[in-house]
């Protein structure tokens, strides 16, 4: 067993069933490594992650007193956790182990150079050993966690998240900024690919949410303040008054009140300033549109009535926050494809509402004129090209694909064909991206339905113009059809439908409050699109649904459930466990200049404190681990190298670089 804190390093080189050993001479690697200081054992195994391989490592730790472990195997993302478990079972701190990727970054990329790959494996393993010499035992950061989550947004993603979290036994507070639940899904009619009625599904979900005893719901409410850290966020919510007492609700709806464009129908109709979003909405009590109410008395039940908005605030402590703030459909610019100038140019969301208002069994009309020919144009407000398309108000172009609109457009084409079989449909597309399971069928159905497809290029989009007086159709669509090698075509139509993309909502206040980030597409940014797809860089703040990017209802629900699973696993034990890779100050080296605080972008992550050193009161930097992201910005700023990221220190990096650069004899000298 080790004496006097002697370093005893175990080095393990995995064959990975031939994935590594077919290229790398693992035995030579093992033999070379054993010659370096403090390496006590150096072994190989056909599969280090197998029970036998792990048992071998455990036995070495117990019997040979190994107190640092270096394993060269597949990518750390695959088995780092496995081996942390291995060393922990043998009684060693899990952070006294270092994983070296020998497969993805060596054998699989150097199969034509076995000797070179073997030498590189030696260097990589040596670097592992060099780092292991500087590893310190670390403990995960454990924080008491409030078993309560805040869900921001009462659309389908927020509702789904809230319900999933509550079903796992946690309390949930759900806040919705608007007066009614349901979000964008309430404005849809049928969903693809199930064909299910959107509001029936939504209302089922709303009923489950409102009946769940662990969910508290606030409409017209928003987050206005946040402090604290994961497990213990102190939040302040502000809620607007509903403005209408339930007893005068019906009278208020029938009163003669000022009207404004109805956003539920995308401005196709008007509504009163005391309103319900749609029949059957929840809550059913009408709400006052405070933005459009000027404070003048309104005559309700024959009585002049002045309405007062008296917002109230309340504080909560929550362990985690789900951001489900949704999206907004792209609103074309004035004149874009004739939008706003030619009355027969509408957006796809507007057409969905128009068909809902039209009802079944009636012929399709627009502005009281019969519709016979319809053009559907894809990629409006999506896949824009910088330099070709003018930037939006924020100076950006929407260069992303909104993903959902291709299938949504084809779904609409098929619905139009089914309801109005005599319509002539023209589908003008850049690419057809029906990526989801079963979505391609909509394209096939549209082909069979004799929808005519015309293809344009991103930098050569169609042109929509008003027809000359006396023409048979009110609108003319001009396109260079790249299915017929760019042939210029003119399509006279009665209605042009713009398949508009998804836009991020303006949640800049929330971004500032929660300290989260938006990506280059301005949607909220996850920590990693594949490995941590719902987490943000702020521990305990997760994303759900279209706040993160374009998604179908199905995908939104899946993302919301993933967010709920993340929150539940985080708070379920009443204790949050975080990786210990956060900044740590060496109080001996720190001279309290506060340079680290100046560069730190995270609120309350570092502060100066008066401490007693050698009997003297001095100012020193102190890290609040729960607020530190571990980015290391403070490390490069400190003039004294007094601050480092635990587990990723500059000294460890320098040791690894020495292992790559120096001759073995020089390295041994450095190690000594």
């Amino acid at each position, binding site marked *: 067993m080790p004496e006097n804190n002697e370093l005893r390093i175990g080095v393990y080189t995995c064959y990975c069933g031939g994935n590594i050993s077919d290229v790398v001479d693992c035995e030579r690697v093992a033999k*070379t490594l054993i010659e370096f200081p403090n390496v006590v054992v150096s072994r190989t195994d056909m599969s280090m992650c197998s029970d036998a391989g792990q048992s071998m490592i455990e036995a070495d730790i117990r019997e040979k007193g190994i107190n640092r472990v270096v394993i060269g195997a597949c990518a750390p993302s695959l088995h780092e956790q496995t081996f942390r478990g291995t060393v922990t079972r043998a009684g060693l701190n899990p952070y006294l182990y270092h994983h070296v990727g020998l*497969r*993805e970054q*060596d054998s699989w990329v150097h199969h034509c150079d076995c*000797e070179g790959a073997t*030498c590189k494996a030696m260097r990589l393993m040596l670097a592992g050993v060099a780092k292991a010499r500087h590893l310190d035992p670390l403990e995960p950061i454990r924080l008491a966690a409030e078993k309560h989550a805040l869900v921001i947004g009462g659309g389908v993603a927020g509702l789904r998240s809230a319900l999933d979290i509550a079903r796992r036994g946690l309390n949930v507070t759900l806040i919705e900024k608007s007066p009614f639940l349901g979000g964008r899904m309430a404005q849809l009619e049928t969903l693809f690919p199930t064909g299910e009625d959107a509001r029936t599904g939504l209302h089922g979900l709303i009923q489950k949410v409102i009946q769940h005893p662990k969910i508290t719901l606030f409409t017209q409410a928003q987050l206005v303040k946040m402090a604290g850290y994961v497990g213990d966020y102190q939040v302040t919510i502000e809620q607007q008054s509903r403005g209408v007492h339930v007893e005068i609700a019906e009278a208020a709806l029938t009163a003669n009140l000022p009207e404004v464009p109805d956003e539920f129908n995308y401005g196709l109709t008007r509504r009163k300033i005391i309103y319900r979003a749609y029949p059957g909405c929840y809550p059913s009590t009408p709400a006052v549109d405070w933005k459009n109410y000027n404070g003048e008395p309104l005559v309700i039940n024959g009585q002049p009535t002045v309405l007062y908005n008296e917002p109230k605030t309340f504080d909560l402590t929550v362990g985690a926050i789900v951001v489900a703030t949704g999206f907004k459909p792209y609103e074309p610019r004035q004149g874009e494809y004739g939008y706003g100038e030619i009355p027969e140019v509408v957006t796809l969301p507007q057409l969905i509402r128009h068909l809902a208002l039209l009802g079944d069994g009636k012929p399709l009309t627009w502005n009281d004129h019969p519709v016979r020919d319809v053009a559907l144009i894809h990629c409006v407000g999506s896949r824009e090209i910088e330099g070709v398309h003018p930037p939006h108000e924020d100076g950006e172009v929407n260069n992303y694909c909104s993903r959902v609109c291709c299938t949504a457009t084809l779904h609409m084409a098929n619905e139009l064909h089914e309801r109005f079989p005599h319509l002539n449909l023209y589908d003008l597309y850049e690419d057809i991206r029906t990526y989801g399971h079963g979505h391609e069928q909509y394209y096939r159905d549209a082909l069979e339905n004799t929808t005519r497809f015309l293809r344009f290029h991103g930098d050569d989009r169609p042109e929509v113009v008003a027809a000359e007086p006396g023409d048979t159709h009110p609108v003319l669509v001009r396109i260079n059809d790249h299915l017929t090698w760019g042939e210029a075509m003119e399509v006279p139509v009665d209605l042009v439908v713009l398949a508009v993309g998804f836009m991020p909502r303006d949640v800049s206040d929330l971004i500032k409050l929660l300290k989260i980030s938006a*990506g280059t597409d301005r949607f909220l940014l996850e920590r*990693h699109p*594949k490995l941590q797809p719902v987490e943000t860089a702020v521990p305990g703040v997760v994303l759900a649904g279209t706040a993160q990017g374009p998604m179908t209802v199905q995908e939104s629900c899946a993302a919301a459930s993933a967010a709920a699973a993340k929150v539940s696993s985080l708070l379920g034990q009443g204790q949050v466990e975080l990786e210990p890779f956060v900044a740590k100050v060496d109080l001996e080296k720190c001279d309290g200049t506060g340079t680290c605080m100046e560069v730190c972008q995270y609120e309350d992550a570092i502060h100066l404190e008066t401490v007693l050193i050698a009997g003297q009161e001095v100012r020193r930097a102190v890290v609040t681990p729960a607020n530190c992201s571990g980015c290391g910005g403070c*490390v490069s700023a400190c003039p004294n190298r007094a601050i480092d990221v635990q587990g990723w220190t500059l000294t460890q990096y320098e040791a690894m670089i020495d292992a790559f650069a120096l001759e073995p004899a020089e390295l041994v000298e450095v190690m000594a």
Partner: protein
Amino acid sequence: MATIPEAQRPKILILATLSGGYAGADSVGQLHTDYPTNTYILPVICPCMFPEEFYLRTFEQGIDGILVMYSGTDSPYRGGPERAAKLINQTYPLMKARGLDTRRLKLTAICTVCTKPFLKEVQQMEALLEGIGYAKAEIAAYAGKENMAN
């Protein structure tokens, strides 16, 4: 003492962020695409942790080219990419002062699936180092000239 019988070639260090270049390098591996063996990849949380002296020391120890593969504007760390870029920009004049070709240090955005850009960056650095040779030799030659001048 053990020896490592590797071919004498300039060495490239790749500092790759876990949320970008490191996962990108794993993706390259999954494609079984070939690139030279004189490349050594280290995972980093965010390159904003490395001060200017870190890069200088790395060259002085015998690394000949450094590629910093970060996540660019997609970095989850607030202010991290900007700070990393600033530190690298501040390193260039210090490199010049030691006679080091500043092209030896490059910051580049590589995402988890950027396999082609990853390979392109490695190939370009490889080609550059073939032309300009070892960093240590460059430092020594410059120091020699300075001594002569003095």
